[in-house]
């Protein structure tokens, strides 16, 4: 199984596809324009800049001194220094530059794209929280977070379906579940927010004190899976780990 589980993977690939398309369009466009429309003329460094500076400060001082005299760099010379398509001038709101058709295109096409992306994310969302009648044969397991460990409660299930133990190598708590059975993990917390995250299956949900939340978990591959805490809960947040072992 790839990271995040199958539901995640399907959606991820689809989103990556569209991301790459959008990214390529934007970047090709950007790189093209920034090369094709680059220029080095009108560079105000060096001599010309100096001229302007002196002119400016002269103008300013004369104004302060009450002398009302105006002088300008000659118009066509200015033109050469500034390739000024839109005739931009200080103090003048420049000539508008728009194209309704183009603007509508890049309003509507992204809108359609996001509608499509929403549409394709709908079914996977439902798959993560199935409705009640799909969960008739599900087994309920309690998962309670407390600073800083997980408390698993098999709620009377047979040890074949659900068992709690300790992993000899790591010393972590192990919750053993059976392959292809559906479990409803009933989450709660005794103190602050926690969130069990079954990393490889890509499932996370907050454990909130005073409230029950659920993860619906149908293991479909055997092995030992890492569970950690994905909602900051204090000092030992990083140590709040456990193992979910899936057996046949």
């Amino acid at each position: 199984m790839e990271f995040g589980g199958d539901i995640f993977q399907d959606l991820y690939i689809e989103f990556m596809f569209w991301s790459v398309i959008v990214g390529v369009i934007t970047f090709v466009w950007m790189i093209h324009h920034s090369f094709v429309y680059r220029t080095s003329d009108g560079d105000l460094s060096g001599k010309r800049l100096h001229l302007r500076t002196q002119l400016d400060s002269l103008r300013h001082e004369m104004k302060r001194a009450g002398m009302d005299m105006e002088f300008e760099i000659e118009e066509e010379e200015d033109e050469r220094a500034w390739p000024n398509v839109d005739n931009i001038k200080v103090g003048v709101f420049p000539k508008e530059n728009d194209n309704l058709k183009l603007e509508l295109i890049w309003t509507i096409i992204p809108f359609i794209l996001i509608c499509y992306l929403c549409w394709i994310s709908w079914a996977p969302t439902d798959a993560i929280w199935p409705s009640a009648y799909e969960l008739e044969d599900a087994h309920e397991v309690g998962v309670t977070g407390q600073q800083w460990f997980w408390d698993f409660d098999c709620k009377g299930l047979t040890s074949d379906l659900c068992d709690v133990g300790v992993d000899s190598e790591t010393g972590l708590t192990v919750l053993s579940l059976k392959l292809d059975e559906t479990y409803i993990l009933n989450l709660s917390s005794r103190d602050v927010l926690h969130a069990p995250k079954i990393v490889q299956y890509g499932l996370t949900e907050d454990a909130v004190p005073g409230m029950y939340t659920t993860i619906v978990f149908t293991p479909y591959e055997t092995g030992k899976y890492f569970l950690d805490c994905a909602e900051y809960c204090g000092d030992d947040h990083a140590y709040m780990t456990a193992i979910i072992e899936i057996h046949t």
Partner: protein
Amino acid sequence: MQVRNVWTVRAMVIVAVLFAALMFSPEHDARPTGISSVDSGCSCHSQTPSSEVVASITLANGSALPENYEPGATYALLISFSGGPAEDNNPERVNTGGFNLVASKGTLTPIDNTTQILAGELTHTDAGNDQQAWNANWTAPTSGSAVLRLMTNSVNGDNSASSDDQWNTVSYTVSGAGGEAPTMKANGLTVLFSGILLTAILFAIALTYVFYVRDPESFSWARFKPWITHWLTSTDHKSVGTLYFVSGLFFLGVGGILAMMIRIQLSSPGNDFLTKDEYNSFFTLHGTVMIFLAAMPLINGFANWIVPLQIGAKDLCFPRLNAMSFWLQPVGAILLLSGMFSGMGADVGWTGYQPITSTTDHYGATFWLAGQVLLVASSTLTGINFIVTIATMRAPGMGWMQMPLFTWSILVSVMMLFISIPTFGIGLIEAYLDRTISTTFYNTAAGGDPLLWSHLFWYFGHPEVYVVVVPAFGVISEVIATSARRTIFGYRSMVYALAGIGFVAFIVYGHHMLTSGMSPLLRFVVMLTTMLVAVPTGIKIFNWLKTMHGGSLVYRTHTLWALGFLVTFTLGGISGMFFPAIAMDVHLHETYFVVAHFHYVLVGGTVFGLFAAFYYWYPKITGRMMSERLGILHFLIGFISYNGVFWPMHKLGLLGMTRRHHTYYIRADEYSDIIGTLPPEAAQWNFFITVCAFMFFLSNLIMVYNIIASWLNGRKAPADPWGGWSFEWMVSSPPPTPSFDEIPTLLNANPDHAPGRLTGMLERIMTPDPGDEGEEAGH
């Protein structure tokens, strides 16, 4: 006189009532804590240790622990307690108690089934529940003195958390082989923060010295006094703006140093450069400092400096209020960080989720809350000020639809801020009261609701992230248009897109709570609205690109940063699309994918935008040109190393590296068969990220150097070095005070300048009626 008396009496009554309320506020034990770690005592029993329980550690043969250990030797320990309810009220001797033992050095190993290692600490198992003494081994480290800290509880066996259960703690220090005495070790946090303070002071002294050498005259008291008085009391928008820059850059540095510490800690798995306590305060303060004390003040700096110039106003509408907004900031900052000097900084994450914020034993959290209340006040005042200024003080000829885009972006940003930040203030005050007078807003045992905070926070928090990024949009609009020597493409759609972002910002915050047990229908709605943000943002990006079309792009440092912004912000925007798809969010929630995404928009968006703004407006602000060569160097190193820091984080997040963890688990050794821990190359990536992070951090010093050096030695700047059109380029560089001798009039190059219907309506509302003015004059 009479009137004043009444008010005095009223004020006294109010104070008295408040005082009484404080005294009668419910005495409530707001913090039950568990047998969980060294700091917090034993489970569900009373908070303070009891002297009736006697805890002890001896060697298994009964003799006392040695004063000096043999390096690497293994000692058999006997851990026990006596006294308390286990002996007095527990005749059957079942479920008598438990313990928790932490060794600062060396390793603890269980030797039978009555004890176990949990999260690095030795504790009893179910089987060991009926005992009062346990055996275990401790293997001594090779050097240094070790502290063994034991907590035990003595319970009455009724299997419930009854309040007469008691606990106690004891600790032993065993010195190393050399027999060195246990040394007092300074707290790392205190050292670091004192270091930052010291660096700042040294830096200030060095800077002062440079100025002194250049002009010793200016250091006489007679000349110093007006100077310092000016900076402390000025209400001029330009001076206040400069103050914002200074404090913003300083805290950008502080946040950066915190980030470096975080990165050193994460450079290898299981690193112990920082303790977990320190790590937790560091990321909390990194986030808070970066957003509230670095990004927002820097934005305010530009808003203060540039907005009045752009709209042709002599100052902000309420200059004194503006100065007050600024001075609330340093006070808030000191409060917010003061917990750090005690080594007990806030450790709650910048989001301050409840109930941990109300219950954490790091008292820095109280200061953190108090400091942020002041920042909220500051932002609210700033919000009012800018909205009123922009609405009423535009120069003649400048309708809403002729405002420069930077001003528009500030308007949208402060609007969002002004509408959203009060809820955050309310949440903060509630949490503050919870911590100080034991109110129970967030005490779940007393019926408080932790999700209330999430709502209050994110109703503000989501608009907040746009508050910091939207001004960067404004900057980029100016920079791209000016550099390409073109009018911005689609001015109107740019404005509508900004307004659209401002609106949508308020209906998407649910996406931060997708995994908090939200109803399915709401989930879908939030998914849709969140993805909608991509539409206005897309419009902006495409408009920027189209602006370059047919232009003549001059590559200046600010142009480079603007193009860099386009790259990183587009990437950040794209990775943002992965979260609203809920089936993906349940995997990505709280992983480094999130960290990568928000740094792509916060650093690649806001901070790059701010860098562009620095290079763009620096000549205007200081009257000097900045060194382009250093600027380009800054861009190249900064941009490349920046991507080296945050790009690999996407991959780490996808593999499941969880954020806010001070360590991570590599699939090796005892974890080698546990699926979902990180593959071994993740450790290498983390090291690579750390190296790049240092390069990024150092590259920004180039800019700081550039700012100072160019200010001293730069070429004189003309009034309009880049060829912009808005009013700030009309006045000299630096602008005189007041900025305009007479208010300029904006001309318009467009032939038909009739305002649209909506604008016309707004214009009529916002411009004062000539009739009103007549009345004013009559008073």
